[in-house]
Every structure is written in structure tokens, then in C-alpha cells.
């Protein structure tokens, strides 16, 4: 299977602090990858490197064979990105926001973007700033999906949403990504949701990737490393996510 994302010895340093340190990563096309790690572990840095908004300090990062920071335009045409703070122009209407997507992206699918918002009952003539947090997240997702991206990157997209909105958001992501054979990488702290959707997992701890691969293999790698490390280095979140994921595996391991 082709690789959607490949990183070799990838490092990113802010001053003296390593946000990512000598990371190797391989994500196959068509996978749904959960990006797991405590706050400050380096998840957002990895996602920003993938969209070319950061430049690696060392190592190589390729998205569909291209370095995002070197070939930004070509790489970004294949990537849909929803960032944690979901920045949208609050003064624009939903229709104008989608029109912006159409004008700025040559591969734009207006039908896809419009119909899914209408299905969710979001009025296109409404001002984005007057929508609820959940509705704004759906508009941001529509903007990302309307590009018909081959890779969808979601940086804690559900952090500020209530449980019902999270459910709706995730169902939408699942429907569209399955239908379009999209590769998805999503960071989230909501354990049950990650377990429900992902088939691959990447665990980042203090800027280092401690496990990466299909859920079962990654959990085994993580468990082996966690037993070697001092317990205090393993975050509660890691333990909770991977414990939950392991319970979801068919053989229960």
C-alpha cells in the first residue's frame, strides 16, 4: 500500500526545546490514524509540519511524496485541514465561506460542501459568527472536505464541542472519508471517539514517537516500551487511550 505520510528522523526545535525529536513515521493511504499524546507532546507541531506551516529542523517529511514546506501549493491541494481553534471569517455568511473555498481551490466540490451543511440544518445565508461552536466546526469541516482532499488532518476538532455535536461531527467525518477513500489523521483527547474510528495509531510522548502502526501492533509496541520506561513517563492519557483501544480489538488483547 502507498504511503500517505512518511517521516524519517524528523525533528522540530523551537529555540532549545525539541517539539519533535528524531521521529520516524509511516502512514498508509486510506487509513484512519489517531494521534495520541498528552498536551505539549508534539501533536499539533506534527500536524503543522504536515500542512507546511512549520519547517522541519532536521530530517525529512513527505506527504504523498512531496515535502510540504517546499512544495506548499501542490501539497496543500491534496490536504484538508481543520485546526484546533477552527479560524473562520466570522463576518462572512456560510455561503460566502464556501464560495471562498471554491475560489481558492481548483478541486472544489461545491455540491458536497453545500449538501452536507444543508443536511445538518445549517442555513447558508447565516453569518458564521452567529453559529454555535458545533455548527462552526461543521462549516470548517465542509471547507476542508470541499477540496476533496486525499488527506484530512484534524487537530482536536471536537475539543470545544458538546457530546452530541461530537457524535454528529465524527459520524460526518466517517461517512465522507469512507465514501471518498480518504486518509485521515486526527488528534483528540476523547478516547471513546478515537477508539470507534481509528485503524492506526501514533503515540507521541515528549516529542518522540513511541508507537506507530495498526492499532494492535502499535499497542504491543507501546506496552513493551511502557514497561521499560519509568511509570511516571507514561502519561495517563496514553494509558487510557491505548488501554481502551486494546479493549476494542477483536481478540481483546
Amino acid at each position: 500500500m502507498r504511503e500517505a505520510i512518511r517521516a524519517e528522523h524528523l525533528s522540530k526545535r523551537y529555540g532549545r526545546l525539541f517539539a519533535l525529536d528524531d521521529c520516524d513515521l509511516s502512514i498508509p493511504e486510506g487509513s484512519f490514524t489517531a494521534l495520541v499524546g498528552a498536551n505539549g507532546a508534539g501533536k499539533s507541531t506534527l500536524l503543522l509540519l504536515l500542512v507546511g506551516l512549520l519547517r522541519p529542523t532536521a530530517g525529512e517529511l513527505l506527504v504523498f511524496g512531496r515535502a510540504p514546506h517546499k512544495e506548499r501549493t501542490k501539497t496543500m491541494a491534496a490536504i484538508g485541514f481543520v485546526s484546533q481553534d477552527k479560524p473562520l471569517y466570522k463576518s462572512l455568511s456560510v455561503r460566502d465561506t464556501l464560495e471562498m473555498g471554491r475560489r481558492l481551490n481548483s478541486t472544489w466540490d461545491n455540491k458536497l460542501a453545500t449538501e452536507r451543511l444543508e443536511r445538518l440544518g445549517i442555513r447558508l445565508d447565516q453569518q458564521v459568527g452567529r453559529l454555535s461552536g458545533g455548527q462552526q466546526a461543521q462549516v470548517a469541516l465542509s471547507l476542508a472536505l470541499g477540496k476533496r482532499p486525499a488527506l484530512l488532518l484534524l487537530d482536536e476538532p471536537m475539543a470545544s464541542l458538546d457530546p452530541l455535536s461530537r457524535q454528529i461531527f465524527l459520524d460526518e467525518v466517517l461517512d465522507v472519508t469512507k465514501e471518498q477513500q480518504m486518509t485521515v489523521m486526527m488528534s483528540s483527547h476523547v478516547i471513546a471517539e478515537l477508539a470507534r474510528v481509528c485503524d492506526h495509531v501514533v503515540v507521541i510522548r515528549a516529542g518522540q514517537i513511541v508507537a506507530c502502526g495498526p492499532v494492535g501492533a502499535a499497542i504491543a509496541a507501546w506496552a513493551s516500551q511502557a514497561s521499560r520506561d519509568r511509570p511516571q513517563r507514561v502519561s495517563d492519557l496514553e494509558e487510557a487511550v491505548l488501554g481502551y483501544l486494546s479493549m476494542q480489538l477483536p481478540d481483546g488483547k
Partner: protein
Amino acid sequence: MTWLLYRLYRRWVMAWLMLAIALAATLLILWAVMARSISSHDVQSCVGMLAREQTTSSIPTCSPGAFATLDSFQTSNAAVLAALEGFPLLLGMFMAAPLMGRELEAGTHRLVWTQSVTPVRWLLMRVACCLGLASGLSALVAVATLPWLSLGTNVWFGSKWPDYDLSFVVVIGYEVFAVVLGLSTATVIGRTVAAMAATGVIWVSVRAAFEILMRPHLMAPVIVKGMTAASAGANWFLGITYLDSTGHVLTPAQVSALVGSGSLDGHGISLAGVVQPDGRFWAFQTMETAVFAGLALGCLLVAYSWVKFRLASQ
């Protein structure tokens, strides 16, 4: 990208357009009122007499109405000068800096950059649209200023220098610098209010420093023996200096040492006026505009580097 900027800022553009129209209309009304007053009180003849009488040191013989009109013109001219000198500053502080600062504060630049728009294109489109709008507004105001300037030239003994800062050539330079400065400070600072304050402080400092320290020396001044402020006519009178009998310039210290308590004439020392001739007006305007355009280009390079190497790809 142009469409996006239009949709985002169309109400803002309308507000600025209304402000420029109001300013232009005020200028034209003021000009019409002042022109009528100047004509009805025969101020032209009074100015001519004043010019002759200043050179002969006799007492002016204008009517009280003409003097009142001249006073009124000077007050109005100071107000017009302040308003028009402040217009580029307004554009830089209240149009350019918020245009960039709000985008960076809200993080919406990342939304655009993760579509198929490069950060550099994003920056250049914003600069181009902002400069285009500001130039249109400045042109509108500058055209409305032309009748007022012609009025001023007649009243100021035919000299264009007193209204130097209102001439449309330098106004373009000030406007371009103010707008690019506003955009650049906001790009670097990333905060709207701080960028507005920084733009104001930098713009006023640069303008004042240039006007006081550099403008008089853009070209070497001409020394005219016997010329005084009253006889300078259409030239820009910078001050007086002393010449010895061979025509060499003496410093005040040299003059004190030579003359002591005696008279200047006794030592062959004469007074001379230091002026920039009337014919250099447009050369000065072009040079000053080029300097401000160069400063604007420098600011743009800073903003470009900041976006390319800091904001877009740290």
C-alpha cells in the same frame, strides 16, 4: 483572493470612501468661501502691495477686510495642512494596520494558507488591495486640494513652498509609506492596537525627522547676497549667513572673532540669504517621494521576510 478581500471589507471600503468624499467636499466648500472673500476684498492687490512694501520697509496700506481675509486664510490653511498631512497617517493607522492585525489575531491567515494560497501571495494581495484603495482615496482628496493650492500660491507671494506638504507628488509618497508601514508593523507585531500605535509613532517620527533634518539638504542651498526673508519671493528662504569680502561663508563664531564690537561693513562682511530656488520645487518633491517610496519598499521587504521565514515556515 481579491473577491475574498472585497467580501470581508466592503463596508469598511464604503466608510473610507465616505470619509474621503466628506474631506474633499469640505475642502471645495472652504475653497469656494475663501476664493469669494479674497476676490471681494481685493486681497490680490493687497498681497502685491505687501510684497513691494516689505522690500521698501514702508507701512502696508491694505483695507481691514483684506487683512482679516488674510488672517482667516492663514488659519484655514493651517487646518487644511493638518487635515491633509494627517490623512496618510489615518490610512496607515486605521486602515492598513487593522487590516493585517485583525487577520493575524483571529488566526484566519492560517485558514487561507491551508487553502491553495501561498503566504507570500496572501501578503502581496493584501498590500496591493490596500495600496490601491488608499491611492484612490488619496487621489480623490489630492484633486480636491488643487483649487486650494492655487489659492495659496497667489496669497503666498507666488511661492509654492509653504504648501509643499500638500502637493500631490509627496502626498503619494507619504500615503504609500504610511500604508505599507501599517501593514508591516501589524505583520511583525501581530496585534492590532499595538500595531496602530507603533505605526503612528514611527510615521510621525520619520516625517518630522525628514522635514527638519533632511529636506533642507536634499540639494545644496543657494546663497544670495543681500537677500532677506522679505525679498525671497517664490524661493524657499532657509535663513541668513555671512559672507566675507571674497564671498566665502563665515560662521557666526568667525564673524564674532573678526568684528568684535565693530560693524560688519567695516570688515567687508555682508549678509546673505540661504535659499532653495523656486525652480527646484518639483525636483524636491520627486526626491522626497522617492525616499518615502524607498522606505515603503524597505517595510515591505521586512513584512515579506517575516511572513516567509517566521509566520509561514518557522
